[in-house]
């Protein structure tokens, strides 16, 4: 799932073919002997083709414009549709940029949720402490950026309730999450305060399985799957956009649904 470093819409073979034509003879021979790939072309020219391209820049700008459009469309009170238990997808799919065997195994007994940034109380939270907070439940549709969707049942603490308890400055722009395997994710404060945004501790009323993000995921039915981090170990309330794993590779930042 790594992003191929090519200009969107440009055929790699044609690009390499064109590049060969303008090379001086000795270089051309070396290049052709070496496999004549886009990777080799990048080594040779020392430039990342995707970064230098105007089309890429224009598309980035429009993607940022779409972040603004989606923030404007987003309603703080409109709820994602909820479903009956009979609608839950079984089995609910595992999904990540790695395979299920490589999913991080977090020890719930020693795990603590780190809290940082613009908050009054930065005391880390144990799983027991989070389980002792008022719990909410939702059966909603998880929608993947790839197009497929699945209905799941999630229980946990409202993020807005938690932010209130730790004395977070909810006038801040973002909440940033860090996960056990290194995944990161930044969301906008209005989404963080949405009533259905949940620090999920259970799936279908049972302790969150490893595949679904044990010990904690953050469930947002108003955003696409890649904006719903699993295996969360830290969160920060901030005015700095720290990006995210997929967002940094070109997925839309807002990722709203």
């Amino acid at each position, binding site marked *: 799932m790594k*992003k*191929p470093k*090519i*200009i*969107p*819409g*440009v*055929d790699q073979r044609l690009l390499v073919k064109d590049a060969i034509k303008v090379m001086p003879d000795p270089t051309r021979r070396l290049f052709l002997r070496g496999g004549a790939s886009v990777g080799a072309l990048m080594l040779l020219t020392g430039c990342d083709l995707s970064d230098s391209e105007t089309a890429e820049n*224009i*598309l*980035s700008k*429009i*993607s940022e414009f*779409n972040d603004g459009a989606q923030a404007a*469309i*987003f*309603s703080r009170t*409109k709820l*994602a*549709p909820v479903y009956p238990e009979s609608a839950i997808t079984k089995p609910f799919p595992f999904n990540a940029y790695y395979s299920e065997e490589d999913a991080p195994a977090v020890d719930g007994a020693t795990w603590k949720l780190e809290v940082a940034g613009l908050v009054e109380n930065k005391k880390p939270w144990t799983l027991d402490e989070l389980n002792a907070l008022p719990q909410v439940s939702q059966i909603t*549709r998880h*929608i*993947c*950026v*790839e*197009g*497929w*969707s699945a209905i799941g049942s999630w229980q946990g603490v409202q993020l807005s309730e938690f932010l209130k308890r730790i004395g977070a400055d909810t006038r801040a722009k973002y909440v940033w999450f860090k996960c056990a395997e290194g995944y990161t994710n930044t969301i906008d404060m209005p989404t963080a305060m949405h009533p259905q945004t949940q620090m999920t501790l259970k799936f279908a009323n049972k302790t969150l399985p490893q595949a679904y993000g044990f010990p904690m995921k953050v469930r947002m*039915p*108003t955003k696409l799957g890649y904006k719903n981090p699993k295996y969360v170990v830290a969160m920060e309330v901030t005015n700095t956009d720290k990006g995210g794993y*997929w967002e940094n*590779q*070109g*997925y*839309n930042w807002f990722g*709203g*649904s």
Partner: protein
Amino acid sequence: MSVQTVAGHSAEKIIHPAWVRICHWINAVAILIMIGSGWQIYNASPLFDFTFPREIALGGWLGGAIRWHFAAMWLLVVNGLVYVTLGVVTGRFRRKLLPIYPRDVLSDTKAALTFKLAHDDISKYNAVQKLLYAGVILCAVIVVLSGIAIWKPVQFQELTTLFGGYDFARYVHFFAMAAIVGFLVIHIALALLVPKSLRAMVTGN
């Protein structure tokens, strides 16, 4: 003087006014980007037992394709709104595309398939053309609305419900695309068979 100019102008017989031609070619670019990037997005989670060859899909990977798709959508929608508004306000749609009688469609289809359909006056559409042009405008409306239903199934959930829910809306979006592609195959083939129709869409007459 001015009367003469107007008379001389109409003698040249403008088949497609400038706004039609401008909208047509902007739309051509937008729809090709939407279809190509849409195929790449489809490949990430195919609805059927096939994927589109990478060579004809736009964007290189899912993230790139989504960027193209959600950039060209503005071009498609803004240009489409201008086109439909002017088509209705100027009366062009009513004049050119209506009425469509099933009997005429049948007889003109038969004539077209036996290469007996006359194209002496390309400013007047036969019944098959009327049906195809009106039909593709309808498909474009459906493809945009079902696209919004997939894009915003929470914020615009009423629209998503109208299309039978999120999963069903994906199929609607796909088949509306397929219908437009089907139209394009016929449309481009016939434009090449009757080159003066292509010239009219470039120069206006």
